[in-house]
């Protein structure tokens, strides 16, 4: 009996080694994939909300005494921060740009506004879209966001260990809409 029990105890360790480690890997993978999807969905939602804010507060709105003043880079950035629940404004990179139509597709009007990171644009008072890219029904607003996603899966990568940081995926999302108002 004793010999038999001793043999079984080694079997459990072997079984755990063969099944447990892949199971843990799968578990961590599922969790990390889910977290990545969550980050991406939130990012996409946030940039879409920022775009929406800009397109319904365009040049026609700015002409109304009740609408004044024109929407600013800071207000768009604040909307993105507010709707991007869980995204750090110190890591989120956002680019705001007005587009005009052309035969070759939309082209930027003026210099894109780079919020790298988003926090640098909070409180900015410059107009967005810029005056020469703010024609309702003609110009569009494009907002692109990039968020670094650091996955714990990277620690399973061969060679991971001392001296290696976790792998970082830069998740991109963008939204383009025509200025409405």
């Amino acid at each position, binding site marked *: 009996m004793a010999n038999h*029990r001793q043999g079984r105890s080694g079997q459990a360790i072997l079984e755990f080694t063969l099944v447990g480690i892949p199971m843990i890997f799968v*578990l961590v993978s*599922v*969790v990390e*994939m*889910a*977290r*990545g*999807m*969550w980050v991406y*969905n*939130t990012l*996409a*939602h946030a940039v*879409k909300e920022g775009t929406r804010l800009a*397109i*319904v507060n365009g*040049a*026609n*709105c700015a*002409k*109304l*005494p*009740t*609408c004044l003043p024109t929407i600013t880079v800071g207000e768009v950035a604040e909307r993105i921060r507010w709707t991007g629940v869980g995204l750090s404004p110190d890591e989120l990179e956002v680019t705001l740009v007005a587009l*005009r*139509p*052309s*035969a*070759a597709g939309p082209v930027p009007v003026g210099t894109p506004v780079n919020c790298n990171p988003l926090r640098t644009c909070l409180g900015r008072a410059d107009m967005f879209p810029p*005056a*020469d890219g703010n*024609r*309702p*029904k*003609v110009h569009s607003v494009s907002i692109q966001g990039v968020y670094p996603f650091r996955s714990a899966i990277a620690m399973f990568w061969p060679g991971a260990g001392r001296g290696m940081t976790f792998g970082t995926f830069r998740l991109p999302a963008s939204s383009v809409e025509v200025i*409405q*108002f």
Partner: protein
Amino acid sequence: MRHGQRRRGQVIVMVTLALIMMCGVLGLAVDLGWGYYVEKTTQAAADAAAIAAVSKAFTAVGGAGATPGAYSTQDSAPTPVPCSSVGAGGALAEGCLYAQRNGFTDTGRQTVTMAANADSVPPTATRVGSVMYWATARVAERIPQLFSAVLGNTMGGAGSRATAAVIWSEAPGSLYALDRQFDYGTPSGGIGNDLFIQGGGSVRSGGDVYLASTAGGTGNPPGQKDYYASEGLGGWEVWSETGATYIRTGGWSTAPQDFYVGPDKVQQNPSHQPEGDQFLDPLRGKGQPPPPPAGLADCAIVETRLGSETVGVISAAVSPVWGPGNYYTVDAAGNATGNRLLVQEGVTFGSGGSCSSGSAPRTFGNYVFFGGMILPNGMVTFDPGRYVFAGVRETTRGNPGILLDGRTQAYMQDRTPPISGQVQPNTDAGEIFIFTDPNYRGGPMSETRLTIPGPVQAVASQLKYGVVDLQAGGAGGKSDINLHGLYAKSGALPQGLEGFDPVVFWQDQRNSTVRYTPDGYYGCGQVSGAACASGRTIDQPDWTGSSATDTNGSPEMNLQATPSNRLFGVVYQPRGAWVILHGGQTQMSSPLQLISGAYEIRGGASVLLQPALRPMTRQVVALVE
């Protein structure tokens, strides 16, 4: 054994805990991701529903020409009502229909509600202030949870709201050339030519320049001259200081290197843009300015022979101020003759009294001139008012007469003088000059006819469209045109004219090679929904004559650009018409927006279109939230 038995349950507990955690995280990703997706679709449905509801009402009241109060007959529901209880046929039902087409109905787990009202502030978008009509759509769906249900959340939810309204939209261009590649174009540039500059002329604009022709020098029509959307001879340039020049994709200039942008005048070729709002008539949907009401006084002017022409003289010696009325010439027997009226130096058209018993309270007057007008020389003053030029006799059969003949050293001024040579915005009601014939129709859907006085009816059929020819440039630089367009906020504009702020010259849309609908759209292919007849497109719509080159009278306007042509507001001609800007010593400089089919700039004219101080606006349907 006991020890082993105690360990047996651990795996189950660990796996259970791990699965719960995994489900939680998966729920965060899958259920939240699905929620975001559903929210995106609800937003699309809400946007479509709100725009559809307002568009339905917009079309029902006559589009962009609607007047305040017109929407009072449309669906009204200041508080949200579920689509399941909305009656058929109205704006709300249209919104519900579009929500349904986007996958959302007011049944089961989905809810769709609509709210709408006229002449009020949208409760969810108060910053837009009071609008003529608004509609808010709310679309929501309850979502069964998959993984999150493990944590006790069996149902989630996603919803969106959108508000659309009828709002005013400014036209950003300084110069609109509406002609397309098969339209008449300019006399020198030919078919499909939108802008022809010769003799070293230039255009410098505060806003954008839009050319709608796709003529690209490839033989248009086939087998004929190579036409271009823009063509120039000699040194010439087009410089848009705060905008750019846009040509519809396919159109080309003979010299794209002669286009500039920016305050620093940087060379930039015209940009190509695909078909879009900016290449359509910016005043579409407004219809035409309504004619004066019936009941104007009859101002019969006994004609006399002056030189080679028999005219009716409106003389300052008879009365320095002439009041509102229907003006026409009569012979000694009192019969209307349809000859032109000659306005002598020193005359003021005052907005009070009538005919020769006029006064000048500077409010708003209505005048109709049958037979055309000559301004031979000297100053003529115009009080704020609506001046209708209703036809002129043809010079010879088939050759148009000159409807408004401003000759060398003619001065036209209103009550807002320039200061230090700079045009000033008017605060009075301004003037609108309407160039037409006795059959003019205006107002919403153009249902109001111009009233022809009884004596004029005998000669009305002889009065046709004519050329507008303001050769105001004169030796010594003394000539001057200083007129201002309508101003709605003055409070003195008659009902129906508010939507035409700040038009100063308006050419009848019927006097065009292109047929317009009564509400001011091209005959087919525009958003009015008018279908094109077989073989017709927006590029080749219905012509008013037998072809694009049948000019149907004379949709031509000659404006002498020098020495002091100051027009404030908008000069409007329909597609198919053309403006000829003549040159001279100095330049035409005004905060002016030009709309016409095509432009020809002759004699080195330097045309400076300053940024519009009061740009034209039109009603449009747009999302505001």
